[in-house]
C-alpha cells in the first residue's frame, strides 16, 4: 500500500514475531513487508484481492481468515506457520491437484509453477491421497502467440483481474457454478478476443500454473535454472528478514 499515509502505524504479531502495519493494510501486506511469508495462490502483487484459494488461511483472534483480505488489527496475535494450518494448506493444494490434470513431468511450467512450488513448500512429496477427478478440459491454441491449456487451470482468476483491471480488456471471465466454475475467454476461443502476448494478463507472472502459455518460449530457460529451482516459493520475501 505505497499510497497510504503512514502516520497511523501499529504493531501486531505473526507467530510471535512483531510486525508493523498501517491502517488499511491486510495481514498479508504487512507480513510481506516484514519478511514473513504467508503461502498464497490467488493473490498476486498489483491485483485486487479475491480471497478464493484459501491457501493463505491464518488464525487471527481465534477465527480462520484469509490473510490476503483480512485487515491487520493492532495488537492481534496471528498464527501462520503452525502444523495444523500447514496441514490444512497442504490438503487444499492436494485438492487443487486432484481437481485438474497436473502432470508436472510433461508440463512446460515445471519449475516456474506456483502450484508445484507450493506443494514442495508444504511437503506434498507424493501423489495426492484424494482420488483424482480427471476432468476432460479444452485446449485452445487458436491464437497465433498464446495457447491455453485449461487442464492446468486452478481457477485463481489472476488473469481475469489482470485483464480487467490492468489491461482494461476483459478477455477472461468466470463461468458456471460449483465444480463447474471455470475461467473462460470472452469469445468462442482466444483468437476471437483482443488478447495480445504483451498483455499483463498473459505475462509470465500472472498465471501461476501452466495454463496460459506463450508460444515458442516454453523451454528458453532450462529445467534446473528456473525460478523455484533457486529456492522455495516465498524465499524472496523471507530473505528480507535475514
Amino acid at each position, binding site marked *: 500500500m505505497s499510497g497510504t499515509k503512514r502516520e497511523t502505524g501499529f504493531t501486531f504479531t505473526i507467530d510471535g514475531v512483531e510486525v508493523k502495519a498501517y491502517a488499511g493494510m491486510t495481514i498479508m501486506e504487512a507480513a510481506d513487508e516484514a519478511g514473513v511469508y504467508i503461502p498464497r495462490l490467488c493473490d498476486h502483487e498489483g491485483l485486487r484481492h479475491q480471497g478464493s484459494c*484459501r491457501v493463505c488461511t491464518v488464525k487471527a483472534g481465534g477465527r480462520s481468515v484469509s490473510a490476503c483480505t483480512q*485487515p491487520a488489527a493492532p495488537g492481534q496475535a496471528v498464527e501462520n506457520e503452525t502444523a495444523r494450518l500447514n496441514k490444512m494448506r497442504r490438503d487444499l493444494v492436494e485438492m487443487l491437484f486432484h481437481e485438474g490434470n497436473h502432470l508436472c513431468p510433461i508440463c512446460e511450467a515445471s519449475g516456474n509453477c506456483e502450484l508445484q512450488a507450493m506443494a514442495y513448500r508444504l511437503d506434498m512429496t507424493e501423489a495426492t491421497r484424494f482420488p483424482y477427478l480427471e476432468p476432460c478440459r479444452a485446449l485452445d491454441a487458436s491464437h497465433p502467440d498464446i495457447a491455453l491449456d485449461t487442464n492446468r487451470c486452478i481457477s485463481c482468476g489472476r488473469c481475469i483481474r489482470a485483464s480487467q483491471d490492468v489491461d482494461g480488456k476483459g478477455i477472461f471471465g468466470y*463461468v458456471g457454478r460449483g465444480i463447474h466454475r471455470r475461467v473462460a475467454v470472452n469469445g468462442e476461443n482466444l483468437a476471437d*478476443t483482443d488478447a495480445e502476448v504483451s498483455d499483463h494478463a498473459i505475462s509470465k507472472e500472472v498465471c501461476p500454473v501452466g495454463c496460459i502459455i506463450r508460444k515458442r518460449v516454453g523451454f528458453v530457460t532450462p529445467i534446473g535454472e528456473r525460478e523455484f529451482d533457486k529456492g522455495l516459493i516465498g524465499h524472496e520475501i523471507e530473505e528480507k528478514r535475514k
Partner: protein
Amino acid sequence: MRNPPELVDERERRAIQDALASGRQRDRLLEILLDVRDAKGGIGISKSGLMFLAEQLRLYPAEVYEVATTYPSTKFVSPTPAVEKAATDLDSEWRVAPAKSASFFGGLVDGSNGSTPPRSLADYRESGGYEILHILKSDPTAADDLMQKVAALNLKGRAGAGFPVARKWKQAKRSAGTPVVVVNGNEGELGVFKDRFILENEPHAIIEAALVVAHVTGADHVFIYLQDEYKFAQSIFAKAVAETMQAGLAETVTLDLRRSGGAYICGEETTLIASLEGRAGRPTERPPYPSEMGYKGRPTIVHNVETFFRLRRAWGAQSDVEIPVSRLLDPNTSLFSVTGRVRNPGPKLMSNLLRLVDLLDLAGGLSRGVELGGMVVGGSCGTLISAVDCERPLPDLVQNGLTLGTGGVFVFSSKDDRRAIAFEMAAFAARESCGKCGPCRIGSKKAMETLVSNGPLDTVLIDELSTVMAEASLCGLGRNAGRFLKTLPSYFGDPQP
C-alpha cells in the same frame, strides 16, 4: 468479438427489448434475464440473446455470461464444447441428487401452501398495523426509543447466525451513506419453508417492519428479495406493495420487489447484494460488513423474513388467536418445517420448550406402518437426533449443543437408509456450492462421491475434508457443510460420544 455475432431470434430480441424498457441499469441484469426467461415461457435466454443483451448494456459478453451461468433461475444453458462432453461421467451423481431429494425432503415448494388468504391491508390496519409509522413520523424521539427497546429485548437475527438486530442498525447509522434495507426472503435450505409461510400469510407485517427499520436508520430504499420459486408469495407482495404505496404509507421510501437467482447462496448477505447489483452470485470476504458497506457501497441492513416479523414485538404487536403465525411474536415459539415420514408435512408452530416427538402430533403422526428412526434437525448442516433423544425436551438438547438453525425437521423411519440421508445433505452442499473457494468447491464434491460409493466409509478422508471445509471455506455454506461432515459417524448408527 471479431466474429460477427449470430443473429438473435426476432421473438427473443423483442423479449430482451421489453425487459430493457423497465430499466437498462447494470443492477437490473438478473431481473432482465428472469423477464426474458418468463417471456420465453420458462426457457432461458439463448447464447446469441446474451450477446445481444451484452451489446445493449455495453458490457463484455464474458460479464453477462458469468452472471447468467451463476444463477440457476436464469435457466441459461451454456453450450458445452464437444471436448467437455466426454467429462460428463463426472456429473452422473449430480443428476441423481434432485430426484432423491424429492422423496426425502419433499415438502412445499410450489403454489399455495393451502393456508388462509393473506391478511388484507384494511384488516391489518384495523388491528393497529402501521400505526407505529405514524408515531415515528410525529414524535422525533420515538426512533431512538424504539432502537433502545430492540436492544433491550435482545432481538436477534433468525437466519441462523443470531446476530443482534440493534447492532446492525447502529453499524449502519455510523457508516457513511444513506442506508438500504433488505428483506431476505431467499430461504433455500433443504426442506425449509417457514419464511414462505409468513410471507404468504402476513405480507403487511413484513412491509411494516421493513418500513420501520428504514425510518429508524434513515434508509430510503427497501428491497424485498423473494425466492424465485415462490411465485405465490411474489404475487401477494406485488399487490401488498402497491396497496402500501397507494395508502401513502411509504412516501419517503422506495419499495423494490426483486426475485432471487434461484440458489441457496443467494441468501448469504454479500451474495444477495451482488445479485441486487447485477453481479455474479458469489460471496465476498468480510470485512467490509454489509451493514457498513453493502449495496453500491451504502450501509445495507439485511434481515431475514422471520426476523422482521418478530421485530414487531418491539412496538407492542400482540399475537392473535385468529392469526396462527402471530404466535411467533412469543420468543418461546418456533416455526418448524416438518418433512419426511409424516402424514401431514408442512410448517408447524410449536413451543420450543416441548419435545421433538410433539411435532409428530402436529404433523398428523408418522406415515402408515412407519416406526420412528429419528430426525434431522437444522437443514443441510443439521444434526441427527436418535428416536430416543426425540423424547427429550428441546431445551435439554439445545443445552447439549443442538442448534435449531432455520427449524428444518426431517423425520425418518427406522428402515430409511441413513447413508442415503447423509448423501442428500452432502449432495446439497455440492449442488449449491458457488465454486468460488477451493475448499467448498472441491471438498463438497469429494464428500458426496465418498458417500455415494458402496464400500466402507473412508472416515480418515471424511475427517480431513471436513476440517478443510469447516475452517478454510469463504462463507457459511462450505463451513457448515464441513461441520455436518464431522457429525457423519452418528449417521451410521454409532452413538456419537
